[in-house]
């Protein structure tokens, strides 16, 4: 009946954890770069099943967490313009900007709507021809093809009042930067859904140039534990490589039509990551051909000066060099109900996952 159950079977879980304990000799730290993994690891209590010397670090893989405060500020500024409707995915509306947030603007009467898919935003544009509809396009390689598809659809069907404000980012530059910056990690639990689109080639450097283990992992407990086992094996045998655990979904070559669509619509640009600063060629912006649907080009707006929350260490948490509990604001000033930093807003953010599920009990 429930197709998830096969991947949550206790017996298989026990077999995998026993095997991890058997072969894992030296202390290791693995980073999961996908927020979906962070959430699943905490929700199922996976750290409590691992030996003490295996550390799981949460990386910069939650799209709303890595988005810049200035991005929220600009979205807020757009929402205050006359005849604008902001279409956004749910979590974004609670991310604190410098002096406001989208949920506060919504409460003040500005038209901000939560959508479940990018095409819903195009539909809103069609139904409101007198308004400019701006989709807040966030996410990695997983969601970029989807907003690219919506943008292409609007372009081909002349939905002139549909715009995208892109904060799309790609994964490889940040994964390499973290190693360059000396974050102590032995391998990556690579993002399953990003890899569905990109295939394995984007991780080649991780193994060949940097000598780190890399396993593309699924999101169920059995997937995650099997991936950890594969990482441990690579480390113990000193044979770093790029392996796919999530074989039922990921192909080595990726999803070629989706990649083609993404490349047709978006080009690379330097982009700002919370905690990492500006990384070259790490963000996606609409190409010249699609300029008339690009909010940044077409809708000028004055944006307030950025103020970062005082004391918040989201940046270091996203790099994996500090744990959420190391933050002076964690659990006191900053909670899921009153988030100071972005990592506390999203269920995929490391801080909220720690707050909700705690590491070990």
């Amino acid at each position, binding site marked *: 009946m429930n197709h998830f159950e096969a991947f949550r079977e206790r017996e298989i879980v026990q077999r995998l954890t026993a095997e991890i304990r058997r072969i894992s000799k030296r202390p290791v730290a693995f980073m999961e770069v996908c927020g979906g993994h962070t959430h699943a690891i905490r929700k*199922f209590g996976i750290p409590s099943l691992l030996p003490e010397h295996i550390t799981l670090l949460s990386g910069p893989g939650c799209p709303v967490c890595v988005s810049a405060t200035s991005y929220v500020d600009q979205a807020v500024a757009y929402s205050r313009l006359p005849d604008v409707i902001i279409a956004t995915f749910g979590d974004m509306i609670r991310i604190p900007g410098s002096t406001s947030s989208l949920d506060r603007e919504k409460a003040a009467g500005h038209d901000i709507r939560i959508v479940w898919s990018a095409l819903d935003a195009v539909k809103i544009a069609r139904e409101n021809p007198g308004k400019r509809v701006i989709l807040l396009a966030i996410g990695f390689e997983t969601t970029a093809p989807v907003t690219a598809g919506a943008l292409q659809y609007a372009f081909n069907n002349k939905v002139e009042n549909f715009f995208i404000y892109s904060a799309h980012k790609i994964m490889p530059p940040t994964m390499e930067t973290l190693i360059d910056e000396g974050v102590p990690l032995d391998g990556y639990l690579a993002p399953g859904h990003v890899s569905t689109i990109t295939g394995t080639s984007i991780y080649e450097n991780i193994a060949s140039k940097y000598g780190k283990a890399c396993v593309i992992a699924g999101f169920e407990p059995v997937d995650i534990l099997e991936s950890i086992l594969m990482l441990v094996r690579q480390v113990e045998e000193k044979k770093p490589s790029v392996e796919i655990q999530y074989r039922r979904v990921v192909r080595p070559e990726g999803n070629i039509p989706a990649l083609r669509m993404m490349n047709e619509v978006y080009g690379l640009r330097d982009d700002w990551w919370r905690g990492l600063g500006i990384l070259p060629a790490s963000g996606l912006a609409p190409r010249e051909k699609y300029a008339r649907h690009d909010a940044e080009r077409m809708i000028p707006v004055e944006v307030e000066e950025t103020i970062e929350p005082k004391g918040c260490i989201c940046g270091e948490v996203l790099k994996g060099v500090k744990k959420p509990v190391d933050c002076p604001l964690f659990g006191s000033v900053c909670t899921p109900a009153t988030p100071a930093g972005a990592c506390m807003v999203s269920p995929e953010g490391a801080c909220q996952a720690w707050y*909700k599920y*705690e590491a070990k009990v």
Partner: protein
Amino acid sequence: MRKETILLGHGSGGRMSQELIRDLFMKHFGGEVLTAETDAALLELPPGITVFTTDSYVVSPLFFPGGDIGHLAVCGTVNDLAVSGGSPLALSASFILEEGLALEELERVVSSMAATAREAGVAIVTGDTKVVEHGSCDKLFINTAGIGVLDPQYRGISHARDVQPGDRIIVNGFLGDHGVAVLAARQHLDISGAIVSDAAPLNKMIGRVLEEKVPVRFMRDPTRGGLATLLCDLAERTSLGIELPESSLPVRPEVKNICEVFGFDPLYLANEGKVVMVVPAEDADRTVALLRQDPHGREACIIGTITHDHPGKVVMETEIGGRRIVDMLAGEQLPRIC
């Protein structure tokens, strides 16, 4: 007077209001106290402690699989009285109507309220109607207040004063049905009626457990915030721990699947026909058996234990055998579910 829609005049207090009250509310609610048309209802309460509660209902959409806003407005308030250990006796019903609301929709809601009140054995004894301009509310909001009496021996139930380590935690059936039913209706998901809201008046089922002298130590209904939020509050309030094996939680496979797709956690989904009871370990099986005698308690089961360990915290053994903390709901999983 069967005009098709509600007009501002229906809230004027004049002739149109009078007609609406007589031809719609009186017709369905009836009853001696209401039809006396006094400014305030005159009630003679039996001896005991008076219990009194109020709740407003703003659910969207008005009609969803397994219920509607009217059914909910009676169940919610009746259950608040019942889980305090009280016997619900009378309700008030106040309506805020948006100009332009179809009269036919209002009548369906009112008739559903009347039917639910009859099932629960409570009378609707007073009420009010206001009409606001189009856009000032979303079709129809309802407030109900309820009054009942409580046998003084049950006064500890809502305070959780007598909860002790070793006590068992019981719930009367599947979790999360209401939250998912409303979500499905709102998102126009075609789940072919697979999941319907559990909204139901629980006073008769709870009454039976109390009549059989089960020493219930705590009761509450896991509505907004779901089971997780209720148990976290109980752990904090008692400074005791709660042990919650995930494998013992009754969740329909259909609900589990929808939660996986939408990223919801059934632990935090609202229920409108569920009660969580804490009873001494030796009374647990008997309580489950009593609950199962009622149509609203067929899937009753024991879900957890009160412990000395980890005071103030709810700890779950996950389905794969891991351990983690369960925390309260922060923010909204889904707005306007009741």
